[in-house]
């Protein structure tokens, strides 16, 4: 994985010093809250319901075990012994003191980590495929491109006061595991007819209150123009994105209002101009970064045998593990969705354990997924049973990846000052109900996503089943959506009808799954059946 050189370290250290100074000035009253807020947000620091919240960046979701240990240490030393992994592959702490924040950033910097631009109206942490470097279907490892973009976007002087936040995602396979088309810019590394690598740019996607799937803006940007083209996209947005209405300020609205073709024309014009300026890093820089992402020292001829005689282990392998590009190895997913638990939360002890296991069994590497789980990307099949036993002992052995128990949920009204309703209790009740009835397995792949407000941090538009919490005259109410998907065939969920109370929504989800079970044909997932039979049978069962 990428390691800082002295330049990278100097920049992160300078950022820590800057934020220490800014925090001091805020505490002394030299900065008002209005002046300080954008500064703290660009260091990941929010003011939430109960305290300050710190969001630490996990660039493209990749962590070393030393970094993972540091995340646990921070949870213990400065927070209340746990952290929350987010849908953008980051981690959040809920109980941070402002006066501690600069020292936390200093601690993070010792392991080449930071919270730079994890919030605010700027280019956010770059996300990527959680199986990068391990997936059998990728053209190349997408992370070097993400790292190139990370450096370009860090402290970019022109783009620190954008109309709104800006999220970029980079993948390099046909299968989209990172909701690429639901980003402000989604990049897919592709190969053209001549066999050259380039980048397909999808621009103007997003969730939030106006969900949109990003249209393809340009099929092929040569790799030696990746930064220049990105800069052109951003400059047009910075100049012409709406600033009159916060809810219409994302780039998706600009692309929608101008039309994709007109936005593309303006980008091309800016691109042609910027190409004359020499702002593109040389290919040698990309090659330098790539050297950090070479394959680990896989054992040649490692055995592909797996003893599946333990049924619990066999189920976990079936549900949580994926084929690795290297024979004898497997990708192991650690579910942070124990039934009845809080989606995405992990205790400091669990974080330490996962770090140790990564060191021992996965070449010192972990990934955070947008589904709020952890991945050990390179596990030797011969070690898998031992690994699973250690996970299971620590409460990390849930065999429920991509089932209805593997719920994405935002923190909701239990933690978030923007939320209208609680998300976590609904997730807990649904997972518990389906685990108790034993239906989770029968249902197969079913992605359920819950947001506690219209800002959609829980990706409810992209759930096969989505739930949106709203405030109805001071009472929590939940709307049901069906048919969303974040993958290759991205689609947006449709609302079924009137909302439900907390118990009602659990029953409504069960009703919807019953309609699926009664109608499904061989091999169909919930989503496939919904797409075939449409909304009507579900509506009839829910409200009829």
């Amino acid at each position, binding site marked *: 994985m990428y390691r800082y050189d002295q330049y990278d370290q100097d920049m992160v250290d300078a950022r820590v010093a800057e934020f220490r100074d800014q925090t001091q000035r805020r505490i002394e009253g030299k900065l008002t809250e209005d002046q300080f807020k954008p500064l703290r947000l660009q260091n990941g620091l929010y003011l939430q319901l109960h*305290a300050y919240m710190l969001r630490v960046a996990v660039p493209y979701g990749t962590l070393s075990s030393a970094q993972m240990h540091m995340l646990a240490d921070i949870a213990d030393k400065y927070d209340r012994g746990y952290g929350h992994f987010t849908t953008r592959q980051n981690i959040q702490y809920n109980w941070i*003191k402002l006066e501690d924040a600069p020292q936390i950033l200093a601690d993070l910097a010792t392991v080449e980590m930071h919270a730079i631009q994890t919030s605010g109206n700027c280019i956010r942490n770059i996300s990527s495929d959680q199986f990068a470097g391990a997936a059998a279907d990728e053209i190349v490892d997408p992370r070097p491109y993400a790292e190139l973009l990370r450096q370009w976007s860090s402290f970019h002087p022109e783009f620190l006061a954008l109309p709104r936040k800006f999220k970029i995602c980079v993948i390099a396979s046909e299968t989209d595991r990172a909701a690429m088309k639901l980003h402000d810019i989604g990049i897919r590394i592709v190969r053209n007819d001549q066999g050259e690598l380039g980048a397909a740019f999808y621009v103007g996607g997003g969730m939030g209150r106006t969900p949109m799937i990003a249209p393809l803006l340009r099929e092929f940007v040569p790799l030696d123009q990746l930064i220049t083209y990105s800069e052109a996209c951003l400059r047009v947005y910075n100049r012409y994105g709406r600033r009159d209405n916060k809810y219409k300020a994302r780039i998706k609205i600009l692309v929608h209002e101008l039309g994709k073709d007109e936005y593309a024309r303006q980008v091309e014009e800016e691109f042609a101009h910027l190409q004359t300026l020499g702002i593109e890093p040389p290919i040698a820089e990309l090659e330098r970064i790539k050297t950090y992402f070479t394959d680990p020292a896989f054992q040649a001829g490692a055995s592909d045998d797996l003893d599946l005689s333990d049924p619990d282990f066999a189920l976990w392998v079936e549900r949580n593990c994926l084929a690795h590009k290297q024979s004898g190895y497997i990708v192991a997913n650690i579910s942070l969705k124990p039934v009845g638990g809080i989606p995405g939360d992990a205790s400091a002890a669990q974080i330490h354990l996962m770090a140790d296991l990564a060191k021992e069994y996965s070449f010192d590497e972990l990934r955070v997924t947008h589904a709020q789980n952890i991945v050990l990307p390179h596990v030797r099949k011969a070690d898998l049973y031992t690994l699973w036993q250690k996970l299971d002992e620590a409460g990390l052995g849930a065999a429920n990846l991509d089932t209805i128990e593997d719920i994405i949920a935002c923190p909701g*009204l239990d933690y978030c000052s923007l939320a209208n309703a609680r998300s976590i209790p609904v997730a807990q009740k649904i997972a518990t109900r389906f685990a108790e009835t034993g239906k989770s397995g029968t249902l197969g792949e079913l992605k359920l996503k819950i947001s506690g407000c219209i800002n959609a941090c829980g990706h409810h538009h992209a759930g096969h089943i989505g739930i949106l919490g709203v405030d109805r005259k001071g009472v929590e109410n939940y709307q049901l959506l069906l048919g969303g998907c974040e993958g290759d065939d991205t689609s947006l969920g449709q609302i079924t009808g009137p909302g439900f109370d907390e118990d009602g929504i659990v029953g409504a989800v069960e009703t919807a799954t019953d309609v699926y079970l009664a109608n499904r044909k061989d091999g169909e997932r919930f989503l496939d059946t919904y797409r075939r039979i449409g909304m009507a049978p579900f509506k009839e069962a829910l409200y009829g």
Partner: protein
Amino acid sequence: MKILTGNDLKTGAVTWWTGQDWSIHVEDAVDVGDEADAIAAREEGARRVNSPYAIDAVREDNGGIRPAHIKDRIRALGPTVRPDLTLKPADPEAGNWVI
């Protein structure tokens, strides 16, 4: 009644205006009547509170104070999904007060 709430500038803790100072316990809050804006401006200026705002609340029969909106009740207690981290970790019924 109108009560005034905000977060402590340095720690971020949820606080309630008691008439003289800020308390982490909502039951210490006092009715600020139409003084909310003046108190908020003065206290924020003195950096004793961050982003204060006034809310509606009612005094309960047991002398407690119940904010009108669920969001402020969760702020007053703590996260309903982590009773151990609320202000009343020993009270298994505390979460019901929120809803």
